[in-house]
């Protein structure tokens, strides 16, 4: 436990000293959300209809942008091996790392979403569902992204490959989240979608650490 707490402290400290890494996904989120009205039309009726999907796709893409940095730096300077050799189980280390990473890449997206929702004519009364769906969704995406990051951390062109690997796996999250946000916007009950997201999150938290730990070991083995 002491080891995991030290890891969290280290990661947060590193994030504060390298704010660029944190800012990039957030800026990307905002830019993508802004591009859609420019690409489609600024009419409020149209925007209100596409807002849930646009916000979700933007969050998905921005989340993927942020995933590459999850293990890259530790891999390159040799810290990852030391974490593997450390006393804490790699699966727990991985889970801690994913969560800390989410705090700095996923959570800002969740916090920004209502403001972007305003710009895209998303109804204010549905903000609660939107934020909740994005919170669950970005957590799940961090977990899935970690699998992709762990599998590609040692490769030269990991930046291109990671989204290709993760996007098919992220389809259910996108569907449940975006449809839930759309249902809430129309005034319908979005509980089913949120429960499904919750179930995916539980499944992810239990299974993903093992996959990621296995993938990291494979990435380190040559």
């Amino acid at each position: 436990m002491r080891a995991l707490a030290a890891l969290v402290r280290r990661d947060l400290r590193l994030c504060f000293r390298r704010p660029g890494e944190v800012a990039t996904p957030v800026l990307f989120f905002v830019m993508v959300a802004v591009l859609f009205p420019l690409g489609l039309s600024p009419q409020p009726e149209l925007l209100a209809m596409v807002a849930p999907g646009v916000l979700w796709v933007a969050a998905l893409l921005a989340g993927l942008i942020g995933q590459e940095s999850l293990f890259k730096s530790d891999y390159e300077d040799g810290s990852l091996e030391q974490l593997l050799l450390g006393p804490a189980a790699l699966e727990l280390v991985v889970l801690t790392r994913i969560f800390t990473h989410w705090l700095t890449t996923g959570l800002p997206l969740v916090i920004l979403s209502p403001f972007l929702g305003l710009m895209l004519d998303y109804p204010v009364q549905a903000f609660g569902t939107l934020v909740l769906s994005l919170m669950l969704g970005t957590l799940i995406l961090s977990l899935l992204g970690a699998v992709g990051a762990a599998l590609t951390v040692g490769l030269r062109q990991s930046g291109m490959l990671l989204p290709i690997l993760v996007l098919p796996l992220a389809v259910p999250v996108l569907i449940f989240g975006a449809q839930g946000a759309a249902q809430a916007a129309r005034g319908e009950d979005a509980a089913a979608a949120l429960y499904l997201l919750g179930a995916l999150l539980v499944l992810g938290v239990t299974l993903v650490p093992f996959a990621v730990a296995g993938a990291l070991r494979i990435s380190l083995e040559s």
Partner: protein
Amino acid sequence: MSPSNWTWFHRLASPPYFYRLAGRLAPWFGWAAALGLAAGLYGGLWLAPADYQQGDGFRIIYIHVPSAYLSMMCYMLVAGASAIGLVWRMKLAHAVAVAAAPLGASFTFLALITGSLWGKPMWGTYWVWDARLTSELILLFLYLGFIALHQAYEDPRSGERAGAVLALVGVVNVPIIHYSVVWWSSLHQGSTVFVGSKSDISASMLIPLLTMIAAFTCYFAACLLKRIQAEILEREQNAGWVREMLEQT
């Protein structure tokens, strides 16, 4: 489990043994496939009557349904072989997974093309976002991701293990993806059903269909065995038994 079962398992894992076994079995599967294709196509294109709703256009199911079925079965095979390779550290299992993936991707692609061609006479468009076709499309991405990943690694032994992890993560996701796409489709399209409606399908249509499925499976088996042979040769190129075998030919 008796010792004799385990020795069979371990013998199968030996590259020279599997190579020879594959060489003996492949021609049988090949001929069975040829016969099955001939019988199935004859039954489907000539003997079976035209569907009263769709006319002759429906006959494409004789290619579409077997392709879709095989694309799914092949992914299960890739995942199963990956699991065996990771758990028992059997390199030949990884060779099976790596050999099967491009075949699965091809069948998925074929299923998508035939599904799209079916759509044109049926619905007037080349692409319909129904649950089955959308799921097939995502399956294609899963296959391509697997292939891209294991080829991106410099060390092929590590690459195939990484691919194996991805395949296992993918196979857990497949039912989730399928369910989510069905849910999504039901929210937006109501009761439109496209492929494989559970309406009554007469024996004259069903028998050629089953024949085609069996024929496709045999074709897949034949191709897979040949591809595994090629994989084995590539991996074992420096081994004694390969050199001996090449000297004999």
